[in-house]
């Protein structure tokens, strides 16, 4: 990444505009994750509704960012690191939009869960998992704006922690369901929420890969350890 200014200063302003939009969108998504997690833990239906409504803003921002990126490609014909920046912006906004969708889905499930018996400890565990993902997102946005490939790589590695949290929760929910079939509906909702948070982590990881690509021109090698082992474990094993 070059930190020197372009001879055409309008080009710099265009790129700064796109960067600012990504940071703003990222901020909205960070808030959506934590609001969704809080609404779940506190059984706060109003906050859950708000998360669902705010997703429209996030979707609109993705469109705005893509329109800006198309404009810069058409009018400025970016090359080198500028080209990689614009390409990564398009992918990052798509990843952020998906994370927003998962937060919205958490809000929906919270609205349903409020009507059911509470599962002890699940809200807190899911909030901690959300917090871990939100922190990853916060760091990857910092890595993006500072062009810090090392920080992006660190975020990429941390996805394994989220995967492990998911695996632990998965086992816990299965245990609850085996203990008492009346827990099945709520545990299924809670499991989907856990799975969605785990998927958020994957999207944040994908953003981290885009940051590495933007800075170095090469995608990182696929050598991360996989923390999610549920697909390999036998469901009725020694849970």
């Amino acid at each position, binding site marked *: 990444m070059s930190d020197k200014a372009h*001879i055409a200063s309008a080009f710099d302003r265009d790129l700064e505009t796109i960067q600012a939009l990504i940071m703003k969108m990222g901020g909205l998504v960070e808030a959506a994750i934590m609001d969704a997690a809080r609404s779940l833990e506190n059984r706060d239906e109003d906050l859950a509704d708000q998360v669902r409504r705010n997703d429209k803003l996030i979707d609109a921002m993705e469109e705005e960012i893509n329109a800006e990126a198309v404009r810069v490609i058409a009018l400025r014909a970016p090359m080198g690191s500028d080209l990689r920046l614009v390409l990564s912006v398009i992918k990052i906004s798509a990843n952020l939009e998906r994370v927003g969708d998962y937060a919205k889905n958490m809000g929906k499930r919270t609205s349903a869960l409020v009507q059911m018996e509470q599962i002890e400890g699940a809200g807190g565990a899911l909030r901690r998992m959300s917090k871990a993902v939100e922190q990853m997102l916060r760091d990857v946005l910092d890595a993006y704006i500072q062009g810090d490939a090392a920080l992006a790589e660190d975020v990429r590695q941390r996805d394994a922690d989220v995967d492990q949290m998911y695996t632990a929760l998965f086992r816990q929910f299965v245990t609850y369901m085996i203990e008492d079939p009346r827990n099945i509906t709520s545990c299924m909702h809670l499991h989907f929420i856990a799975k969605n948070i785990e998927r958020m982590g994957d999207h944040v990881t994908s953003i981290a890969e885009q940051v590495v690509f933007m800075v170095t021109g090469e995608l990182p090698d696929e050598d991360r350890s996989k923390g999610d082992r549920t697909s390999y474990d036998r469901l009725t094993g020694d849970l």
Partner: protein
Amino acid sequence: MNDPRQISAQTEKALDSNDIKIRARDVQVYYGDNHAIKDVDVDILDKTVTAFIGPSGCGKSTFLRCINRMNDTIDIARIEGEILLDGQDIYDPSIDPVQLRAKVGMVFQKPNPFPKSIYDNIAYGPRIHGLARNRAELDEIVEKSLRRGAIWDEVKDRLDAPGTSLSGGQQQRLCIARAVATEPEVLLMDEPCSALDPIATAQVEELIDELRARYSVVIVTHSMQQAARVSQRTAFFHLGNLVEYGLTSDIFTNPRDSRTESYITGRIG
């Protein structure tokens, strides 16, 4: 039926060659005391369009002109090092520069047709090099060259009209046709489109793409977009040095040298 997607993916690559046509080693050029080209090593491939880019005064045109000894005409110019065409040193005393220039054709920035008929513009080179035994053969060469210059259909009914009566874009394609009439192996182009409008530019670029099936084409251009569009290899010159040389797709997406990066992204002039 083959998968049409695979066909289109193959045709661009199918032409790619790895045969070295021109090999330059340790080339230095001096204009008097001015060291204009410094330690240039480069292998230019056959059946490939190679673009030379770089800011004004970086030496790209000077180096291009070394390849057909155009700098011989400048008294104060001095060239050291080695430039081999198909393994033969073009600066060897036994090489006749006129014969060399028939093999290494050149097209200039401003279209420069001879003040003669369209026919004679093309026929001039083949005549002096004795490439045709009679009028019928010469007619054939003229038609073939004008077709390769992608201008035959526009001029076939007025071959006796002066070359200078054509539009700028047509004149430039006429000059390209003239350059290919002597059956060259290499075509050097020094900013061939800078005096042309966008449509004429597109026509010349299309022509360059067709020419690469037969020739090694080297083009100097100030338009990075043009280099990106027409070339398979790009060389970036800066202050007389060849800073970076590689696949055009790599140079424009992920250059290795920070000077190349600064230049292609519009950060240094």
